[in-house]
């Protein structure tokens, strides 16, 4: 670990990416993630082989990512909600062509231009694919700047391991907030498969097949086979990559499920509720896909009820309900449009549940 620095989330993510070997960044300005491209534009030209390019659009940026990933590079792009919507075309192609890359979404309020304040209303888009076709992405949701750094570094390894894009889903707060950060020294993983599939130049007898980076499978039976192959990878991800943090769930009557910034607020609420004598716990999904259904199902065995808290009108709550499988009531509290829920609001929600004996 290096020395502790005070860094803005966006800048810390950019630096973490560079530490993880990312040398190519293609992006487009949009608030509240501008410090990522700005940081990259400062740093990458000073690093040998590094390239920052401001694209003409979000669409172009993600397709530059496609080209760079297809050429075998570690590459990243970042944006915020409306820009991520534009990138969905490219993301779908990247998944189809099985290319690794890292995408950062500092979510802001929507729909439409919405606001520039923090939100979590892109949960469906992030965890259900987002673009066209059958696919998934690993979705990592940090709740602190330090965790954003660690997850960003790991995201590149995961992307290479699975040949699939990895999405870092933050929000305006994670991106804009300054926190003390230690930049871990990134160790190159030796277990990652070599990128023998990359298009780097070929001639007969050069020792590999001609590279064709492609997502077109015109024969339906071949496409079905390809999609089945993708889903075999997703099954492995579900088995091995699911992450969450649990706090005080063992004896909890009420379990709050929240991620990212919202989980921090929920943690404060939980502590105060405990002090009041209401046994409250917290499950914080770190991977939004694959979703940590197992700890929620386990908690459903003893908890009286669940409260899902989100900065949206209720999206992750669907996954919580699926995990609870009707065994216990699942309640929802959310603020949206860029409004951040307060500790007091969450406490009141749980107090009401306790009062009503729900």
């Amino acid at each position, binding site marked *: 670990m290096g020395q502790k620095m005070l860094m803005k989330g966006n800048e810390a993510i950019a630096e973490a990416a560079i530490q993880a070997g990312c040398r*190519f960044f*293609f992006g487009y300005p949009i608030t509240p993630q501008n410090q990522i491209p700005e940081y990259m534009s400062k740093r990458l030209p000073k690093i040998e082989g590094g*390239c920052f*390019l401001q*694209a*003409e*659009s979000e*669409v*172009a*940026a993600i*397709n*530059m*990512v*496609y*080209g*760079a*990933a*297809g*050429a*075998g*590079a570690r*590459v990243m792009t970042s944006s915020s909600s409306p820009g991520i919507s534009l990138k969905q*075309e*490219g993301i779908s*192609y990247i998944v189809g*062509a099985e290319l690794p890359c890292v995408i950062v979404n500092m979510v802001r309020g929507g729909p439409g231009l919405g606001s520039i304040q923090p939100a979590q209303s892109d949960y469906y888009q992030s965890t259900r694919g987002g673009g066209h076709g059958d696919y998934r992405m690993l979705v990592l949701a940090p709740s602190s700047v330090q965790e954003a750094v660690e997850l960003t570094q790991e995201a590149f390894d995961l992307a290479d391991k699975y040949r699939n894009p990895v999405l870092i889903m933050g929000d305006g707060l994670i991106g804009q907030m300054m926190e003390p950060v230690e930049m871990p020294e990134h160790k190159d993983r030796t277990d990652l498969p070599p990128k023998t599939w990359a*298009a*780097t*130049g*070929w*001639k007969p007898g*050069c020792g590999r097949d*001609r*590279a*064709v*980076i*492609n*997502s*077109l499978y015109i024969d339906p039976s071949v496409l079905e086979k390809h999609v089945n192959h993708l889903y075999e990878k997703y099954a492995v991800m579900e088995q091995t990559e699911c992450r969450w943090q649990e706090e005080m769930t063992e004896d909890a009557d009420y379990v709050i499920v929240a991620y990212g910034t919202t989980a921090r607020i929920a943690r404060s609420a939980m502590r105060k509720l405990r002090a009041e004598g209401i046994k409250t716990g917290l499950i914080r999904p770190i991977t939004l896909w694959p979703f940590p259904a197992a700890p929620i199902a386990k908690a459903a065995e003893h908890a009286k009820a669940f409260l899902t808290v989100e900065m949206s009108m209720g999206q992750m709550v669907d996954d919580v309900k699926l995990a609870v499988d009707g065994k216990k009531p699942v309640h929802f509290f959310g603020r949206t449009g860029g409004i951040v829920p307060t500790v007091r609001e969450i406490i009141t929600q749980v107090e009401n549940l306790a009062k009503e004996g729900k």
Partner: protein
Amino acid sequence: MAVVYEKTKLLTDKPLHYCPGCTHGIIHRLVAESIDELGVQEKTIGIAPVGCAVFAYDYFNCDMMEAAHGRAPAVATGCKRVNPDNIVFTYQGDGDLASIGAAEITHAATRGENITVIFVNNAIYGMTGGQMAPTTLPGQVTTTSPYGRDPKLCGYPIRVSEMLATLDGPAYIARVSVHDVKHIMEAKKCIRKAFETQINKKGFSLIEVLSACPTNWGMTPQEALKWLEANMIPQYPLGVKKEVE
């Protein structure tokens, strides 16, 4: 006996899927021959488009990437920036390049991205069944301009080469045709020169090739080439539009 002419090894053995008399095949051959003659097969990455040439990755005997509709110049940019010593070319049709990909081609050109673009202009969307393209001629009947393209309703055809030649970024832009052997030979020279421009690191090069679509124009292959000469060349004058020494 000496070989005067045979299929280049830069094309794979896969039979081309193009319709009889479609000149895509000629343009493929000219591009492949240029890569072969310049001896850069092992450095070349081709970027295939969406449209009739979508399967180009099956035909060019080099590493290939298949791009989303219109995005080939962006994909080529990412690829070239990673490995600047690669020779990167895109092969795009008029719907792909001049309509949905108008932003990507314009910005790749203005950045002077050191790539080569082969732009096939046949004034129609071929793969999707003959709809109006940004390059469709005024009055030309297509499946989405059944009464003929009306410029009052949907504007005028875009002269891509002239438009991009106004930019400072490009190093070499030319418009050629493949409607007869003489013009095919001239097209070959220009395509080869475009690749040389890239090899010599001079920057962005684009060759617009006027091409025939007998099937969607509703003509025999012979009629289509005559129609191209009589109607497309007046709208899209041939020649070098920009050349930076």
